[in-house]
């Protein structure tokens, strides 16, 4: 195992050396920009890449950012996306409150926060793909 690592390291060193042009100046990897370090744009993959590309378009399909609060009235309830028929909601009511009111929000009619009365409505959705 150790010899495999050493051989690998040796090959990398040889490769790094070979990457230098005949004049000794370092050749730049064709894909990488500027001085040879790849960027996320070039190299990010998987979920990281998916989120990065969505964020560029101003989207947040994986709910990284805190949800924006709606006015919470009957006409303008907070829309809570869910992949099933219910989801836990934590209502902070007023800004800087130190306690959170937790309750299950079920599919169907909008429910109200027991403390501040803000309206919440469940929005069933498909899994983000």
């Amino acid at each position, binding site marked *: *195992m150790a010899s495999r690592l050493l051989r*690998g*390291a040796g090959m*990398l*060193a040889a*490769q*790094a050396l070979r990457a230098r042009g005949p004049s000794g100046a*370092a050749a730049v*990897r064709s894909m*990488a*920009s*500027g*001085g*040879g*370090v*790849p*960027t*996320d744009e*070039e*190299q*990010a*993959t*998987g*979920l*990281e*890449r*998916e*989120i990065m590309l969505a964020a560029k378009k101003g989207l947040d*399909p*994986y*709910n*990284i950012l805190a949800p924006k609060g709606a006015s919470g009235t009957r006409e303008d309830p907070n829309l809570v*996306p869910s*992949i099933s028929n219910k989801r836990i909601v934590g209502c902070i009511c007023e800004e800087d409150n130190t306690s959170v009111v937790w309750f299950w929000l079920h599919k169907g009619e909008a429910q109200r926060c027991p403390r501040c009365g803000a309206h919440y409505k469940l929005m069933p959705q498909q*899994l*983000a*793909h």
Partner: protein
Amino acid sequence: MTHQSHAYHMVKPSPWPLTGALSALLMTSGLAMWFHFHSTTLLMLGLLTNMLTMYQWWRDVMRESTYQGHHTLPVQKGLRYGMILFITSEVFFFAGFFWAFYHSSLAPTPQLGAHWPPTGITPLNPLEVPLLNTSVLLASGVSITWAHHSLMENNRNQMIQALLITILLGLYFTLLQASEYFEAPFTISDGIYGSTFFVATGFHGLHVIIGSTFLTICLIRQLMFHFTSKHHFGFEAAAWYWHFVDVVWLFLYVSIYWWGS
């Protein structure tokens, strides 16, 4: 594609936590066997399984992050917290040894001659190799910062050079310290002076070796193009650890080598 609506990483089942725990059992019981029965078999087995666990666990982390893209920003944030908490725990680990040193040296007992360094101890001159060691580690702190900035500015060759310099300085420190250990006029069994000196500097030296290993892994990864200019937390974690090792040395130098001489 993914089947989750969150950005976190639900790690697939892995055997390495179990093999790690087993290796810890083998290492500890192996130590006991070595101390009491002069047999190193269990200990060697423990060290081997420990090395194998670390290699395979961290290899899997590299696969999950660089090759599979599971390390989204929230995941990275968690890793940052984790590394900070770990380094904090190490700070407390060293705090214990500094406590022991100051406990014994601030009020030296009559058995020691009521002064510090105790009777019979010739401490190392803080202006000789220990001062060189200080400059070596401080310089390595500069070179690793250079490496980081080079990485962030897409400068591959400078990053590799600076990281290599950092590692070589770390190796230089280790060699100098090993030579000091060999040449020192006192040993670990020379009373409380010897105990506090070698346990504190010894654990520090171990951490330098660990840090140098971490940096070397980063060098290999950089050679393999793993790091991007924006996403290179493995390197940042190694840099944080390296600065921590440097700071511990500064405390050691001022307390034990300088004030304690």
